[in-house]
């Protein structure tokens, strides 16, 4: 009889935990209530105990790895002679257990949680396969406990698919698997639930620039395939989708607005250095730029204003909308509300969450329609400069281009190479005048060039 050890939830908000250390090695005797491993969340450690007298038969996730809450991370058997068959089935996995050298596995950053999960898909898949084998070979001595057989006896599915199925309430038994040997993939679950499978490509600016490594920021492989493709084939006319129609309407309404443009070149050397430092703590370039813009808008309420029939309307809040392109056409503008009241780390987290939910098309209307000022960043494509079209209901939008090494003549007549980012403000001249826009850009530039560390709080 084998019993699973699950990743426990150390807090209500925790979705996954890091295994710090296995206190027992496979084959070790464990008593009920004895600590078997240590799981860490932030600065708190939790001992995970065995609920069973027996033997630790297998370690399925090694020390240093991260597992979703509820994931099986180890197996305990009641009798010593059950260890060998379990270990046999898990051969080549992490049954070596907790030698101290495994503590050296790279693991520090909690920000890479998502990738972490993907780093060990093999292991998890094998776990599922093992269970299947158990069922298909009834001669095997090892019985499954009831909960295991309910979940996975007849169904072969990837862990992600299982997670999705349980959150969406999809019955895996009814899903057709498209993977090897009919294994159910996450996409199959989405399909079964009637959701679009394609992941929209999101133009999230992770950097103002990075021409030095041209390929680094051109998204990942799966996305790069979609770059440069169009929505239709040559000779076809493709109907606008709902989102595209909405964008069209918004863009056309700008034709009735007397807009002007004003540009500025900003030296980003200090900002880039600062970004390098805070990046490891999960800070995104978008959050930095949003923070800089919001802080500057606070000093320039005129640039946050908009035209209304009754006069110049000054919103109560500063809410920054950021344009995000969708893979299947159209764009959406998730809003970071009151960035001045949120610290940089929280803001980055909010932004990642908004992008994630934009992809899943799960944004609430007030999360994309309440912007008072808009940012559009095409820096990741290496563009020199561009200008943006003003969204209706707002007074200004800032177009951010790539930051590139540029030969600069300094005030003292010397020449140096600095990273220069061009920004271009488009504004409604009925409410924002040239001088307003220019002095806003001057202060924005000064903040980014001289005091990027102020963007933390």
């Amino acid at each position, binding site marked *: 009889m084998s019993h699973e050890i699950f990743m426990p939830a150390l807090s209500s908000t925790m979705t996954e935990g890091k295994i710090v250390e296995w206190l027992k090695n496979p084959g070790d005797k464990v008593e009920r209530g004895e600590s078997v491993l240590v799981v*860490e*969340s*932030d600065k708190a450690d939790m*001992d995970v105990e065995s609920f069973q007298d027996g033997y630790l038969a297998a370690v399925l996730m090694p020390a240093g790895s991260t597992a979703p809450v509820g994931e099986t991370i180890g197996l305990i058997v009641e009798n010593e002679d059950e260890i060998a068959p379990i270990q046999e089935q898990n051969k080549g996995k992490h049954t070596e257990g907790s030698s101290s050298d495994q503590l050296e596995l790279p693991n520090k950053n*909690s920000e890479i949680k998502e990738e972490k999960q993907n780093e060990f898909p093999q292991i998890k898949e094998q776990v599922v396969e093992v269970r299947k084998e158990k069922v298909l070979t009834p001669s095997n001595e090892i019985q499954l406990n009831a909960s295991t057989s309910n979940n996975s006896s007849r169904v072969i599915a990837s862990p992600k698919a299982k997670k999705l199925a349980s959150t969406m309430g999809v019955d895996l038994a009814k899903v057709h698997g498209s993977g090897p040997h009919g294994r159910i993939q996450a996409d199959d679950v989405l399909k079964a639930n009637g959701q679009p499978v394609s992941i929209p490509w999101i133009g999230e600016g992770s950097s103002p620039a990075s021409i030095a490594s041209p390929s680094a920021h051109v998204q990942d492989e799966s996305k790069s395939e979609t770059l440069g493709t169009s929505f239709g084939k040559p000779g076809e006319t493709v109907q606008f989708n709902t989102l595209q129609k909405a964008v069209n309407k918004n863009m056309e309404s700008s034709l009735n607005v007397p807009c002007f443009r004003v540009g500025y070149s900003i030296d980003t050397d200090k900002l880039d250095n600062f970004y390098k430092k805070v990046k490891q703590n999960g800070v995104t370039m978008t959050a930095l730029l949003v923070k800089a813009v919001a802080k500057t808008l606070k000093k320039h309420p005129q640039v946050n204003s908009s035209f209304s029939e009754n006069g110049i309307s000054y919103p109560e809040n500063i809410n920054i909308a950021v344009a995000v392109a969708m893979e299947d056409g159209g764009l959406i503008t998730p809003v970071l509300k009151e960035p001045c009241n949120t610290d940089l780390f929280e803001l980055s987290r909010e932004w990642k969450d908004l992008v994630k939910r934009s992809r899943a098309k799960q944004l609430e209307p007030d999360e994309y329609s309440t912007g008072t000022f808009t940012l559009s960043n095409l820096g990741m494509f290496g563009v020199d400069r561009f200008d943006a079209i003003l969204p209706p209901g707002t007074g200004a939008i800032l177009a951010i281009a790539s930051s590139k090494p540029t030969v600069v003549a300094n005030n003292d007549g010397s020449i140096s190479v600095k990273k220069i980012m061009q920004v271009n403000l488009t504004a409604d001249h009925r409410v924002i005048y040239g001088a307003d826009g220019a002095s806003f850009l001057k202060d924005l530039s000064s903040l980014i060039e001289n005091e990027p560390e102020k963007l933390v709080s």
Partner: protein
Amino acid sequence: MINRTSIIKQPDKISFFNDVYKLQKEYQDGLISGKSNMNLIWLGEHQLCYTLGRGSNKSNLLFSSDEHDVYKIDRGGEVTCHMPGQLVTYLVLDLNDYNKDLNWYLRKIEKIIIKVLRSFNIDCAAKHGFTGVWIGERKIASIGIGCKRWVTIHGFSINVNCQLQNFNKIIPCGIEGCLMANLTDYNKNLDVNEVKKIVKKIIQEEFNFNFVSE
């Protein structure tokens, strides 16, 4: 019945790390086994020593381990340093009587430290992703918690007027370039005893304790 009673210990003399560690373990075991229903709050100072969490990276120690006392203990977080002039607070607390949520508990402890410092008119804050309490870019208080069956062990330390150069021998909390601060940098009149009184008072308020002396 919910147990909100705690023994409070606040020795005036410097305590050896190992003695207090054993004491905490006794109380933790007592609560886990159900033999005792007493939480423990310990407030005091240690002789100079360095402690490592279980997941700690030894490369954050910048000296060879025979040079100073180094203890590897059952808490989260990276290396830190204790010494006279630093107020150490340990809480052996049965979270089954409060909230079985370690994130809640860590935030609660940050809140306690912030309240203590604000009572001395020192402006400080918690930083998302960097558990502990900070005055600007300087770290004033460190947190490290262990937990077994929802009974906590270890706690937090506040630098009052200690020799901060002892932190130069480590990378505190694994954050490179991390600067530490003393409370006396911001309020000259403070000493460990003064801070101890306020910590005790605010812990009592926040956890709604009845304190019992032995």
